[in-house]
């Protein structure tokens, strides 16, 4: 099977879901989400049936990279993230329904829910296109599919002020960042005379390249990518949007959008890092951004009282570690034992597992109307030992406790920075990791040690699908924490 069929299967699935929603009289629209989960699961299995291109001359390869481990891995990340977000969206249905426009007279009582389940499937297709884009045009259009759909989803609960604010903020800042991206692309095209990443890499490596203009293009593109990654100093939107958006969408945004931005960053930054003329300059900029992101993200999280907001800052902090791996790239001449791409991919995989696990728990708490502040989960262990245990594993992994996947991710990031001799970065990362230990484990401690905030002692109900997803993610976190070689081997 040709690799570019995958996205069309996903788009077709989304269309089927929209059609079923419109024409089949479903009793309960939540079965649409189950259909989506099933379909995406099938596409995930098809990832293993991808063949190498049969017709290398087809114009599609000008826009779409031939399948390699990296792009297939990121397609898998996109699919898994979407599946888990849909799992969360099933639990979240009552809250969405209470915050969108009321149904018309005689309309289905769940009107508006079908779109909430179909749109993430289209985002998934966009993320999968991003994973394979090797041309400035296809990079731009796939980024726009993802961000425009995210604007709609973030502001979906429009009778909720927070969600509306999230939508509007993401809309305005997203448009600004798209402007920077296109302006940077225009300069890049002017300098290199090509839209394809292959010829761009060759042109940037030539000694005669105009380095002022090339670095200008680099910084414009980096502004936009840092916005998408949530990297400082373009991270201001992250906490507000994460807090306001519906919880399943926050989870989707924090993992899916970041993974998509990460693979695009990897593809766009590499031509600069490997260029003998521009490599050191580009590296210096990345180091500054990584240090700022590590510090602002992790230290900013210390003062947070709202769990979703805290996860926003945590996501910024993790971007710092990602960029740290990228900034430790060995430019020509240096030898690095570990491939930065492997570290990058491993970190994204680990981030997916632990962040989605936290959001799965938060989503259940949200749906049970427990609130989302730190106070609301005090003494959770007494009330729901299962949820508390799952959240403990996820938080330990986010903090980087040994024997979890988060530890291996951070370890690899430190190792590669050490190999590259980036001492400033290591110092910032140490401060960030220490702050992380404090605020993640503070939550864990309050779950286990404090007395419950309310007298309501009944266990919070968790449905089977959510429970199974939680257990699988928790097992994967521990498994990849103990035997990390599987993923690392894939990329070395």
């Amino acid at each position, binding site marked *: 099977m040709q690799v570019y069929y995958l996205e069309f299967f996903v788009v077709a699935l989304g269309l089927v879901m929209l059609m079923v929603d419109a024409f089949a009289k479903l009793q309960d629209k939540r079965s649409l989400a189950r259909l989506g989960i099933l379909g995406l699961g099938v596409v995930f299995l098809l990832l293993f049936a991808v063949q190498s291109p049969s017709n290398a001359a087809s114009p599609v390869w000008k826009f779409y990279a031939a399948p390699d481990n990296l792009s297939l891995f990121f397609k898998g990340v996109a699919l898994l993230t979407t599946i888990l977000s849909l799992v969360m969206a099933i639990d979240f249905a009552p809250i969405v329904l209470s915050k969108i426009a*009321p149904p018309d007279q005689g309309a289905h009582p769940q009107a508006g829910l079908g779109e909430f389940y179909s749109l993430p499937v289209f985002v998934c*297709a966009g993320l999968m296109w991003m994973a394979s884009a090797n041309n400035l045009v296809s990079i731009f*259009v796939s980024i726009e599919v993802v961000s425009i759909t995210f604007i709609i989803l973030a502001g979906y609960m*429009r009778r909720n002020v927070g969600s509306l604010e999230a939508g509007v903020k993401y809309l305005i800042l997203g448009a600004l960042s798209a402007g920077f991206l296109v302006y940077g692309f225009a300069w890049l095209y002017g300098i290199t005379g090509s839209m394809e990443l292959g010829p761009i890499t060759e042109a940037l490596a030539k000694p005669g390249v105009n380095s002022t203009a090339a670095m200008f293009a680099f910084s414009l593109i980096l502004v936009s990518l840092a916005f998408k990654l949530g990297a400082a100093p373009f991270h201001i939107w992250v906490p507000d949007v994460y807090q306001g958006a519906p919880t399943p969408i926050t989870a989707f945004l924090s993992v899916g959008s970041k993974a998509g931005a990460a693979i695009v960053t990897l593809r766009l930054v590499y031509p600069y890092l490997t260029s003998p003329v521009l490599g050191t300059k580009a590296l210096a900029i990345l180091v500054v951004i990584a240090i700022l992101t590590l510090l602002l993200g992790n230290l900013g999280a210390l003062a947070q009282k709202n769990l979703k907001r805290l996860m926003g800052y945590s996501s910024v902090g993790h971007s710092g570690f990602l960029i740290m791996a990228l900034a430790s790239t060995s430019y020509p001449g240096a030898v690095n034992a570990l491939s930065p791409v492997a570290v990058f991919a491993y970190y994204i995989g680990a981030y997916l597992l632990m962040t989605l696990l936290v959001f799965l728990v938060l989503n259940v708490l949200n749906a049970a109307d427990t609130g989302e502040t730190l106070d609301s989960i005090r003494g959770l262990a007494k009330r729901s030992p299962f949820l508390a245990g799952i959240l403990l594993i996820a938080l330990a992994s986010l903090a980087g406790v040994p024997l979890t996947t988060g530890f291996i991710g951070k370890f690899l990031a430190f190792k590669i920075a050490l190999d590259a001799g980036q001492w400033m970065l290591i110092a910032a990362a140490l401060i960030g990791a220490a702050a992380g230990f404090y605020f993640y484990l503070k939550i864990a401690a309050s779950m286990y040690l404090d007395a419950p905030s309310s007298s309501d002692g009944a266990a919070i109900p968790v449905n089977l699908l959510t429970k199974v997803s939680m257990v699988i993610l928790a097992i994967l976190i521990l498994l990849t924490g103990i035997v990390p070689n599987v993923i690392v081997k894939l990329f070395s």
Partner: protein
Amino acid sequence: MTFLFYFFSALVLFGGLGVVFAKNPVSAAFSMVISFLGMAALFIQLDAFLIGVLQVLVYAGAIMVLFLFIIMLLDVEEVEKRKLSLPTVIRAGGVGAALVVLISTVLMRGGTAGQALPKLVASPEKSDVLRIGELLFGTYWLPIQIIAVLLLTATVGVVVLSKRELK
């Protein structure tokens, strides 16, 4: 030709400033039309006739008429004057000035000079429209399909977000 370039560039900038500074939304919309017309003239100067014509027909024509309709339907009077505090003005001005300095530095250091862009191939037997169509639906079929998905999701989203009562 150079004079015309500067003339139409000035028109574009004049229109752009009008959009920002006009107090009445209708005048702001018309300033945008002026800006689009100037842009269309610039495209035509670059021999991109089809894009120039589309700019006039689609942007200046259809989209701006829609804009005006909405402004008039909503009956937006003058926008209330926003009070800008001095620190805001200084910060925003600083960023703007820094960007101008940056861009002029880059341009002064040669811009993209030295790098020849791919030559445009003239083919008198085929019209502009035909060649753009061939490119869009031949070589560029994948990005076009992706944009189709983008338009679909945007349409679905607008309907869901804007209806007062959902069907």
